[in-house]
């Protein structure tokens, strides 16, 4: 039972990540490879504020969102001058640079040693410790994020993003500035990813930089490519499919030494096959350009 609760919590955290990345990938049409960095900054900022500055959980989450927002603005301004391959490369560059800093700035992040003993969240004096309580907390955040995201998806802002994605020049002709719209989407996505980081850090109570690598950014992108992007269904289908696939493989009786590789081989092949037959993913709306 605990195992199932754990899986549902992890799915909740990943849904926050993929729904936010969907704003950039599915609505903006931009393949960003630095989403794990925002997830990581959120996790580290929350942890350090709680442990070093003695902040409470809620204040730490809000401050982490603002800190991550500043970082995503600083990354978005140079990155969004580019489209296509250069954009992918610049975001990948920032992913590598910030990961290197997280890994090597031992004085701040303790680098590869990680930070253990992160306190569990406490809200208005109520300490969250058990799995069902944590599940409740995660899904409260998820519902809040989902409401914000759905409002954005359906708002004139979301429509303008889609218009820019489909035909940047035509939308620009209608007075929509690609830079400001994409930048707003990029910063909002980063800020929301930070919430997932806060939840992850306080749930696992230990963080180290290896949870926020380039592979993690690729994994988040793959979830959207497999599930589909540009609507609400795609990220949900992708997240559930990609988180539950390894568990399904486990039931097939694959030994633990082989299972992670077999899983990755399957991910890889699924992506290639999708590119041939369904470039918009299983339930997505946006076709890669």
């Amino acid at each position, binding site marked *: 039972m605990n195992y199932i609760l754990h899986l549902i919590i992890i799915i909740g955290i990943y849904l926050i990540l993929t729904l936010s990345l969907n704003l950039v990938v599915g609505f903006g049409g931009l393949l960003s490879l630095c989403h794990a960095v925002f997830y990581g900054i959120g996790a580290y900022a929350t942890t350090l504020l709680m442990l070093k500055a003695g902040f409470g959980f809620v204040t730490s989450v809000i401050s982490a969102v603002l800190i991550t927002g500043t970082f995503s603005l600083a990354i978005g301004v140079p990155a969004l001058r*580019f489209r296509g391959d250069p954009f992918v490369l610049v975001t990948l560059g920032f992913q590598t640079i910030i990961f290197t800093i997280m890994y090597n700035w031992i004085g701040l992040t303790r680098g590869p040693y990680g930070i253990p003993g992160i306190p569990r969240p406490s809200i208005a004096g109520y300490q969250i410790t058990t799995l069902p309580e944590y599940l409740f907390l995660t899904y409260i955040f998820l519902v809040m994020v989902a409401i914000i995201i759905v409002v954005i998806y359906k708002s004139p802002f979301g429509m303008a993003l889609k218009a820019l994605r489909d035909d940047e020049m035509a939308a620009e002709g209608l007075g929509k500035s690609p830079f400001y719209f994409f930048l707003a989407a990029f910063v909002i996505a980063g800020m929301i990813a930070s919430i997932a980081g806060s939840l992850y850090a306080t749930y696992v109570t230990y963080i180290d930089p290896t949870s926020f690598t380039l592979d993690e950014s690729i994994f988040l992108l*793959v979830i959207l490519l497999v599930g589909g992007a540009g609507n609400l269904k795609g990220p949900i289908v992708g997240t559930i499919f990609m988180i539950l696939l390894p568990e399904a493989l486990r039931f097939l009786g694959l030994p633990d030494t082989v299972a992670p590789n077999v899983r990755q081989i399957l991910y*890889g092949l699924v992506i*290639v096959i999708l590119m041939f037959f369904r470039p918009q993913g299983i339930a997505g709306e946006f076709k890669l350009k």
Partner: protein
Amino acid sequence: MTLLAQLLLNALCNAATYSLLAIGFGLFYRSLRFFNIGFGAVYVVTSYAVITASQALGLPLFVSIPSGLIFAGLVSVLMDKLIFHPLDKHGSSSGVLLVASLGIYIAIINLIALIFGNEIKILSKGMEPSYSLGSLIITRIQIIQILVGWLTTILFWLAIRKNTLIKAIWAMGKVPELIRALGLPYNQMRAIVFFLSALFAGLASIATSFDVGFDPHVGMGALLTGAVAVIVGGVDIYWGWICGASLIAFLQAIGVWLFSAKWNELITFALLIITLLLRPHGIFSQKRRAEEK
């Protein structure tokens, strides 16, 4: 000062290997205009093919190295024939090709990890002989790296200038439609691009594997070094790629001297981002009229 001189000597060796990566990456990026992550997989395949031939099958190095290179070349051509070329014919965008290449990269790397394990392997047996140049030390494999890297770079430059087929391949990136219009064998030329690019990746891979070893995950770093060198130097300029590769190697050496080797990746990508921001077409690109772009 001796330390700096030693680091610069090491940078000269790295520059030779990085140049091979840059030529390998630049070749298809310029000719076919898409970012092929599968290049990283081909890089890894070579070293594993060589180690299988030499250590498991017991073949001598002069047989196992060429067979490893040819095997990698065939994997690369097969990747194109089965995935990229059909997608291209289908009218897929460069984004779709990029993602498909990411998929095949993930699949191949994990297949290798499944067969050979994740631990670091090394091609050379025992200690590498080394030679002193005054207070500086150079190993045998470093001398081979310099010779192979720089000779290949010069030979390929001559090939671009003198050989008609290579010239046509070089021209392909500018006007791909022209290749078919001129009646040149487009499909074969594509296969040659993938084969040659794998050879360059393979040479770099073997040179590095003798020196510092390899594991299934080194391909992504190699791909990115090649890509950064090509973009920093300018996609259309052959010597720009080489200068880009050398710049990365020397900046990393200076980084090691001033700070520590752990910041190398940061230096590479900071170079990429700064170059893209200041000179989006590469350091050595020239100003072109709008109609030339």
